[in-house]
Each structure stands twice: as C-alpha cells, then as structure tokens.
C-alpha cells in the first residue's frame, strides 16, 4: 500500500518556507477569481449558461454509450485511428507501440491532465523516448521534477525568483534576472529548435464532438497547434467524459471555460481537429482509467461533469494557502479532493478533511458540481471505511455527546475555562495534541458563558 498523503504537514511546509510564497500564491489566485467575477457580471445570461452547461453534461453522461460510439465512428470516418484504453497502463502501451512502429525518438506535447494521470511521461522516458513539455508552466514543472500544482497554471506556486534560478540551472539564463518576459523569451528560444525536430506531437482534448468526430484543444500559448502542425504524427489522449453531442453545445462551454478559469473571454487559441493533415497520421486514445467506476457511483458521478477550469481551486481558501503540491496528487483543490480518492482511497484519505466546507467551490463551478457536498460525503466514506486515525473518530464521538446534550455542554464550557486557565502553555500548544495551536493563539474563554449571561439578563 502506498503511503498516505499527509496534506496538513505538506501545507504547513509550504506556508512555513518563508513569508513570500503563500502570500503571492493566495494573491495571484484570488486575482483570477476576481477577474472571473468581473467578466461573468458582464454577461447577462451567465447563470443561464451555467445551467445549460450542467444540463448538457448530465444529458451526455446519461447517454454516454450512444455519444461515445458516435464520436469514435465519425472520427474513424475522418481518417483518424481510434484506440480504447481501460487504464493508464494500456494507454501508455498504445502510445509506445505507435511510437516504436513509427521509429519515434523525440516528442513534443502540450498540457494534458489525463496523460499526467496515466504517468505517461516517466513511462515513455524509461522506454527511451525524449519528451518535451511545451506549455511553459508544464515545462517549469518538468524541469523541477514536480507534478503540476494547478490544472490551469501548473507552476503558480513558484515565484519569479524560483523560475529564474531553475532556468539558470537548466537553460543557462542569468539567475538574477527574474523578469517574466525575459524568462518566457528564453524558454521560447530554447524550445523552438525542439519543435522543429520532433518526430511526433501529443495533445489532450478539452472537448470531443460526437456528431462530427472533432476534438477541441484550448491553449493560450499556441503550443498545441505547434505540436499538431509540425510533426507528421499526432496522438491525442481523451477521457471518455469529454464528449459533447454537437458544436452547438460546444458554444456554451467555450463561453464558460476561460472566463471561469482566468477571467478571459476565451483562450487565445481554440483549435478544432477533425482529421489528419494530408499525408499525416492522427490517433485518438479514448481512456477510461477509473471513469466508468466513477460514473457507476451514485454519489460521486457528478464529478465527471468537470471541465478542468480550475475556478474551484482559485476560490478555495484552503487551497490558496496550501499550494497544490500539498495534495500529493494529479488533481488538487476541491475537485482534486473529490477525484483523487477514486484512484486510491487510502493514499488520499486525509484530503477530504482539508477543507473548511465553506461552499465557495460549489458556488463558482461553471457546471454546478456540488463539490462541498461531495467533500462531506467523502468524509463519511473515510470514517465508515476506517481510513482516518482512531483519535479523530473518538473525538467525533465525544463532540457528538457533548454537543448533543445541553447539560454536558454547559459543564464542558466550564471545564474549558478552568482547563485553559490552569493547563501549562507547553501542554496547550503541544502540536501532537493541538495542531491548531501550532499557528494560532487559543481563544480567550470567558468565565461567564452565554447561558449564564442569558439567564442573568432574562431576569431583568
């Protein structure tokens, strides 16, 4: 069994490293949230679009067999070779087989959370294939040996100085120059020759259109288009939940996606691939990797509506302060808490407790996924399946009896007052029993309780 992710420890490390990272991270993501609010408010039908998007996704997921079949048939008619993969391993093997058959040594790829999920890059590298991430944020993460910390802005947890040091070490830039435009230019110069020499290109897909067999990729850098327009071989990995019936449905999602993500009208490039270029080869791999299991789950199937915009992460007060790497998983933030345990319940059993349940994620989700409710549902699963430390279950039992009986509650209030007053600080702030006290001063508990005050004033 893999080691359980200690998210509290990881988050504490992110916060404690200095007084820059957490503050910057929080500020940058909250900025995205505010930009989203501004552009959303400029569209009178915004809420209408969210309702439509949610309904289209639910319709498609409840007729998925029909639409998946239709999509695959149409893509094949357009000259695309379609493969099906039950899990990450099968996906990776299909990719490798295509590469070996075509004598591919070097590939360029644009960002794909699905390929990330399948652990594709390390697999290909082990098999002697040189993989270049072309999205700037993903490239930064590749050079750092880290997974993406955010699904839209993968290196958002790094400061400009972090990137300056990383590029200095890897591509020979000046470590003292942390200008984002100079660093971006340096990577452009470094990546360009590799675009030209690549034997194959790989992309993911944001949407797949059933009635035309088209897949759609949204990027701001144009790296997916470079990836698809230079090498003669293009492979796209597509999760089976990405299907939409027609391009009329797509219109709704293009209007929502980038506005929800970064507060921009759309991504700079919305690219539609319906078939290979003349004389070239195009493959699609339709991947399950746990999606059918999720679809069969009566509680958690709505998470398949997700369009990976990252709005829930930008708005989450816990994510903004923890940093995405704290989740130790492909997906972080509220949507990560809901998806990750479906891959490994034990490894990710602490994630559902890393939330204030404030509900901001549910409020902002463009496709109305009930994220906060699902996080709460996962807590129930973890407690039921005994995935949480015994002490927490016992504490909940104690809380249940104390809060459930007015008599015991009143007695407990007095105990808390005298307890805090007479317990030595070394014990009160001992982190083994009081994680809260590590970063917070304990509240002053008054001798007079609300009940005392109420009874006294009621008499007057």
């Amino acid at each position, binding site marked *: 069994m893999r080691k359980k992710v200690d998210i509290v420890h990881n988050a504490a490390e992110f916060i404690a490293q200095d007084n820059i990272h957490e503050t910057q991270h929080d500020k940058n993501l909250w900025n995205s949230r505010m930009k989203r609010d501004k552009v959303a408010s400029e569209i009178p039908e915004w809420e209408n679009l969210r309702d439509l998007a949610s309904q289209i996704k639910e*319709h498609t997921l409840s007729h998925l067999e029909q639409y998946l079949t239709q999509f695959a048939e149409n893509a094949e008619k*357009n000259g695309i070779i379609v493969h099906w993969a*039950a899990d990450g391993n099968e996906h990776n093997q299909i990719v490798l087989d295509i590469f070996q058959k075509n004598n591919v040594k070097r590939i360029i790829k644009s960002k794909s959370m699905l390929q990330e999920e399948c652990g594709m890059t390390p697999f290909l590298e082990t098999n002697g294939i040189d993989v270049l991430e072309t999205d700037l944020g993903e490239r930064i993460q590749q050079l750092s040996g880290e997974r993406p910390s955010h699904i839209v802005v993968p290196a958002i947890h790094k*400061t400009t100085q972090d990137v300056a040091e990383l590029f200095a070490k890897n591509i020979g830039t000046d470590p003292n120059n942390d200008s984002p435009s100079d660093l971006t230019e340096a990577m452009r110069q470094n990546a360009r020759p590799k675009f030209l020499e690549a034997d194959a290109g790989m992309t993911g897909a944001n949407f797949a259109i059933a009635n035309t067999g088209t897949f759609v990729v949204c990027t701001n850098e*144009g790296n997916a*288009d470079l990836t698809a327009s230079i090498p003669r071989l293009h492979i796209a990995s597509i999760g089976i939940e990405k299907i939409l019936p027609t391009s009329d449905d797509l*219109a709704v999602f*293009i209007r929502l996606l980038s506005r929800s993500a970064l507060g921009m009208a759309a991504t700079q490039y919305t690219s539609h691939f319906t078939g290979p270029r003349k004389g070239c080869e195009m493959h699609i791999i339709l991947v399950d990797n746990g999606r059918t299991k999720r679809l069969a789950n009566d509680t958690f199937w709505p998470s398949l509506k997700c369009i990976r915009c990252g709005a829930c992460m930008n708005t989450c007060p816990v994510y903004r302060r923890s940093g995405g790497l704290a989740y130790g998983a492909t997906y972080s933030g509220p949507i990560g808490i809901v998806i990750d345990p479906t891959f490994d319940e034990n490894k990710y059993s602490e994630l559902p407790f890393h939330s204030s349940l404030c509900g901001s994620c549910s409020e902002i989700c463009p496709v109305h996924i009930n994220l906060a409710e699902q996080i709460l549902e996962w807590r129930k699963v973890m407690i039921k399946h005994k995935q949480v430390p015994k002490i927490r279950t016992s504490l909940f039992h104690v809380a249940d009896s104390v809060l459930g009986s007015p008599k015991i509650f009143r007695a407990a209030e007095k105990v808390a007052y005298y307890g805090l007053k007479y317990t030595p600080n070394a014990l009160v702030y001992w982190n083994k029993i009081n994680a809260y006290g590590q970063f917070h001063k304990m509240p002053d508990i008054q001798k007079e309780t609300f009940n005392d005050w109420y009874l006294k004033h009621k008499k007057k």
Partner: protein
Amino acid sequence: MSSKNTILKAVHASSAKRVPIEHPEIPSFEIKNNNLLDTFKKNLAIAGAEWYEVSDVTEAKTIMAKKLPDAKIICSATKEWQGNKDLTKIHLPRELDDVDLGVIRAEFGVAEMGMVWLTDESLKINSLGFLSQHLAILLDPESITENMHTAYKKIDLNKHPYGNFMMGPSATADIGATLVHGAQGARTVTIFFLKR
C-alpha cells in the same frame, strides 16, 4: 473482451441506473442593436491584438512595414498580399520557421470574443499561423458574427480537418501570474479590416 467493449458495457450499465436527462434547448442569446464591428474591436484590444481599417492592401503593407521595420521574410496565404517566401514551394511545415510575418485572410470574426476563424484552407500550411513571428490577418468587416452560438452555426466542422478560433497573440501568465505575449506562437497579431 476488448477495452472498447468493456468500457461501453460499463457505461451502458451506469446510464441504465440514472434518470435520463433531456438535452436542453440552447438559445442564441443575440442582443438587439448590437454594433458587431465595435464590439469586435473592443474585444480584440482586450485579447492583445491591434486593428486598422484600410482601403487596400498597399495601405496595410505600409502600416506593417512601419510596425515591423526589421521583418524580412514575409509569407502570405492570401492572393491579395504577395510575400517574398512562396508557400507553394514549401514541402515540410518546419520550413516556415524563418518567417517574420505571416499573412492570412480570416473566414469571419466573432464579436463577443474578438476572435477570427481560420481553417487549413485559410492557412494553406497550418504551421504558418504558429511558426511566424508576427501575423497580419485580413478580415472583411461585413463578416462578423455576434457570439459563439451564432459562430458555430456558420461552421461545418466536417468540411475542414483543422480549424482555429484565434483571439490574439500567443500569451502566457505561467511565470509569476504576469501576462506575457509571444510565448510559443505569434508575438503580435494585427487585424486589417478589408473587404473581400
């Protein structure tokens, strides 16, 4: 059983458990008296592109020469604007790597977004749109549609293996959340309003 059958069978079983949800009617959300050209120009600027109204190609060329005095290699996918690198002589997409200015005629524009629709037919060689350091795009000011709903009604995706809604220059905010233009694709995009 093949993975295809396993997946489809599992999907079928899940659908059978759910209440089938109807597909909703999608309105086109058009606004009365929307000045499409003005809206388009406004959104184009937000996306980081520049625009000029010109009466002929010569005027557009003069503007570009002033904007990019160092641009030497010009490659055009249009009949009206002759470049100095012949697109018909290109064998491999990578041969467009040295292009300073790529010239394309867009099919139409989308006012809501400030984006233009390009296909493999408008690009001739797809990499022209992404390897060129800068882009000049010609657009008929009469060919502007209101929003994404009306835009997709105009397109038959099956007519073209490749199509792109391009909204402006290549952009990134991956370092320090600061917006930078010219990440991997074109550094600048200039739109010329010129009747077809």
